[in-house]
């Protein structure tokens, strides 16, 4: 059973550029959440997708956008990159159950903006 996968693993971009990160959820999961983890910090929620729609959004600017496809995979797009966008970007998938919701994380994409 494949877990959550993300691509690419590492990425180096220049300020002002745009980037697209990809995520495939764990088999059977229909909800994808994206988090940004800066060095020395816990993950910060960016947004969540369910049934191809953004269900909730954290305190991130509109430069951060996303998409979910019919197969539940998801993309995170960041426009006009800033140095402060350098971070580990984590994708998590989940499936709501009566026992509560566990989110399972992918290995992340390390983005460096120079």
């Amino acid at each position, binding site marked *: 059973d494949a877990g959550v996968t993300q691509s690419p693993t590492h990425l180096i971009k220049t300020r002002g550029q745009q980037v697209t990160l990809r995520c495939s959820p764990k088999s059977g999961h229909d*909800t994808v959440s994206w988090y940004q983890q800066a060095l020395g910090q816990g993950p910060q929620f960016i947004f969540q997708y369910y049934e191809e729609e953004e*269900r909730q959004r954290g305190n991130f600017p509109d430069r951060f956008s996303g998409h979910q496809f019919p197969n539940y995979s998801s993309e995170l797009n960041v426009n006009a990159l800033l140095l402060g966008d350098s971070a580990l970007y984590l994708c998590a998938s989940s499936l709501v159950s009566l026992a509560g919701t566990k989110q399972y994380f992918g*290995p992340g994409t390390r983005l460096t903006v120079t």
Partner: protein
Amino acid sequence: EDKVVQSPLSLVVHEGDTVTLNCSYEVTNFRSLLWYKQEKKAPTFLFMLTSSGIEKKSGRLSSILDKKELFSILNITATQTGDSAIYLCAVPTQGGSEKLVFGKGTKLTVNP
């Protein structure tokens, strides 16, 4: 605003020691608290706690929740070098979307 605070932020111990990691929270409509272990990149799920006073155990790791005092602890007994990692505590917020609010994590280093 929902908040999760972990302490200590960093801890260095020797193999065989027992450690206790702390997590306090302030969140509306509490439903559960989750612990994750992050070694290199992907946080891996350890425990989900929903009921107060019931200990969850997995090998040398155990965790308990106190809903009255709004905190949880994660215990690791007989630590090994492989326990070196960042331990994250997270609480889902209200709204049904299960957005997780994380603490900053505790960086545990176990020396041989």
